[in-house]
């Protein structure tokens, strides 16, 4: 706030109990006139009028800061009001012009269109704001990330990108450069500039515009899967949060945590929670599907022990199995079956297999997870006592969206497809056989060296 104008003497006025401005010093009269008031008419500055009338109604002396704004100025006045018979005497003892209420992003208003945009980074060069064109392709989790990482994720590597990153680090003006956005192969013209900040270092801002032509260094690269890789990175995170909220709220209502409700309403709420859980699983599956179908999809090569993975899976699904009175047998801790595969992906495959076994087995049955080393491979099998998979369906079951005619059980028809793709990506295989006694035996084979 700026310093108030020191008034040598108060600016005074008198307001009648019907709101008319009876008398006013020149500055107050001008202010009233600017607000549309006329001499002898109602006081047209609402904040002053209401203060005067309040003082008359209460018959109390008031002393307050009053903010008045019109198209010319923002003012803060310090006003003291003394009620007298049928009128209020106003004394404005300070007349302060407030700085215009400019928000730090006002200069960017024209930048948030479909063809322009901006990314702003804080003093530590972490992404702070994004709008317009520049916000496309960003996930909520990108905010707060290092600016160079974000730009590196959004745009293809090039000399121009390196120059921009260097300019950001040095907090100097940069550009215009033409960069290629990875997800839509869009050419964008970028300029960077430092923004003076209150912290030790300046923040930085990059402005983007659609480029009219592609830069000289550009060659046509990128695959269809690159262009389509939108779901897992951008849409899935955006969908998970509201779905999580729906599940949490529906469970609260269904669980009657805030008191009893009608039984059918509680059942509806549980249905909502189940449907949202299904959607959430589908979102996860679609994200995975997109990932495993990319030509450049790779997995890590961790040294893992399949018995350990099996026991973790059994632990994670113990409650679900108990709901169906199903018992899960896991390999003994002494039986070590090492494998070379990505731990997280192996866990994902095993969770899918054991989940399916629980889902499609009758209540009260048993599931066995067995691991063994055969030649150069590590094998882990999930064996159930369900109906099994007919021989003619044993390949079909691994196809995308294949449900073998089932519906309404919460499956998406993607789990086994994704699991097999993951197994293949890790140099292994996933197959199904008939178990002894008629159930299904799914075997995951992974390299062990």
């Amino acid at each position, binding site marked *: *706030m*700026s*310093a*108030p104008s*020191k008034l040598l003497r108060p600016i005074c006025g008198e307001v009648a109990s019907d709101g008319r401005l009876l008398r006013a010093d020149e500055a107050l009269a001008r202010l009233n006139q600017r607000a549309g008031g006329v001499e002898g008419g109602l006081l047209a500055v609402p904040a002053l009028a209401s203060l005067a009338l*309040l003082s008359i109604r*209460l*018959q*109390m*002396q*008031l*002393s*307050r*800061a009053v*903010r008045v704004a019109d198209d010319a100025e923002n003012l*803060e006045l*310090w006003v*003291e009001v003394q009620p007298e018979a049928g009128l209020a005497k106003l004394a404005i*003892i*300070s007349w*302060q012009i407030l700085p215009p209420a400019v*928000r*730090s*992003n006002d200069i960017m208003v024209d930048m948030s269109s479909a063809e322009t945009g901006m990314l702003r980074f*804080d*003093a*530590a060069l*972490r992404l*702070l*704001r994004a709008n317009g064109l520049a916000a496309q392709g960003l996930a909520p989790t990108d*905010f*707060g990330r290092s600016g160079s990482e974000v730009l590196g994720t959004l745009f293809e590597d090039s000399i121009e990108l390196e120059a921009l990153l260097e300019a950001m680090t040095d907090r100097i003006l940069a550009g215009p450069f033409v960069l290629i956005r990875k997800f839509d192969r869009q050419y964008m013209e970028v300029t960077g500039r430092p923004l003076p900040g*209150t*912290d030790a270092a300046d923040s930085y801002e990059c402005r983007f515009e659609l480029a009219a032509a592609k830069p000289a260094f550009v060659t046509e690269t990128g695959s269809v899967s690159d262009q389509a890789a939108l779901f897992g990175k951008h849409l899935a995170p955006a969908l998970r949060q509201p779905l999580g*909220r729906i599940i*949490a*709220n529906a469970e*609260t209502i269904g669980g009657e945590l*805030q008191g009893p409700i009608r039984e059918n309403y509680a059942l509806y709420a549980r249905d909502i929670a189940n449907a949202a859980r299904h959607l959430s699983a589908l979102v996860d599956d679609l994200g995975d599907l997109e990932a495993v179908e990319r030509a450049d999809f790779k997995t890590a090569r961790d040294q893992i022990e399949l018995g350990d993975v099996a026991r973790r899976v059994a632990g994670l699904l113990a409650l679900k199995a108990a709901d169906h009175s199903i018992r899960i047998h896991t390999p003994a801790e002494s039986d070590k079956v090492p494998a070379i595969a990505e731990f997280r992906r192996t866990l994902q495959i095993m969770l899918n297999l054991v989940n399916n076994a629980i889902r499609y087995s009758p209540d009260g049955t048993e599931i066995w997870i067995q691991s063994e080393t055969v030649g150069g491979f590590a094998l882990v099998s999930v064996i159930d006592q369900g109906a099994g998979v007919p021989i003619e369906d044993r390949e079909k079951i691994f196809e995308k969206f294949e449900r073998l005619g089932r519906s309404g059980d919460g499956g998406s028809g993607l789990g086994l497809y994704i699991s097999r793709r993951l197994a293949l990506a890790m140099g292994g295989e996933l197959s199904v056989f008939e178990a002894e006694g008629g159930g299904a035996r799914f075997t995951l084979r992974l390299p062990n060296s």
Partner: protein
Amino acid sequence: MDHGPDQNDSLLKVGADYARDIHALCADVSAVIFPSAISPPTDAMINAASSTLLEIIGDIETRLSPWDQQSPPQTWEMLARSGFLREAELIDFVLARVSEDRLSVKCDDGMATMTARLLDHADGNIADTAQMLLAAESLHRLAAGNSYLGMPAELLHKTVWRVVAALEVIHGTRQQDVVAAARALIAQYAEANRIQAAARKIVHFMDASEQGELLDPKVSGLQLHVAAISASLDFEHDHVLRLIDASSSAPYAILLRAMGVPKAKAIDALFLLRGEMLSSREAGIIDSGYDLLDIDAAKAETGRWTAARAHYLAFGQA
């Protein structure tokens, strides 16, 4: 609790590490599901609010009907039964006093030091108002029987006439001397003598260069600090007090961010005023998220709070 800067850093690091633990997750989820049930007033708060209210009604009654002092005040039961004592603005005022009492013990020294310094200020308005502020503060603390003088004009007016009406009902007749005493009380009231008004007036008259000190409650004291926030963000003084003393530290952190207070200063202020209430989770979130919070977004958020408060206080009014 006294934490030096090094200790603060250590605490914040610990907090940051635990910011994503399961309790935090549960608290966040519950805050979404049960936003209003997370922080019910504690017994201590309810007791403090009741005794403040009792004191105010008792003081007004004594002033209007000095020959008929009773404890509890004779109008208490009738005012309670009529619902007046549960009116939003009265409860809000009383809860702000409870917050004020809790917070002011943490930075009393600053208040005394800075205000005393302002007595010699070159600007006569500031010097005079500083004197008024000190007097109002002394009255608030020491002078028994005048608790009602801290009320806003509208609320005092309403309360006084409610007490007059209740006395009429109790005695079965209009007592002219009570009415005259009520008029006298109201006529003698001057809003400028309230702590809130005096603190706000000082902030109004201060140069921008002097206002930096007001961001540090340890230096400025509670009331001038609150008045600075009130002036900067156009909040009511009591609203700021209640936000600082809220069950979560987030509102105060957002207020400070909206004013553009740098993180180090904000953390000092948070530790001073909310040290014993600051959870490791909150410390972690503030440590990692304060700078990421956009100032405009913080301003937009605080703007919604003022609208929500106006809506709350206007509830049930035509």
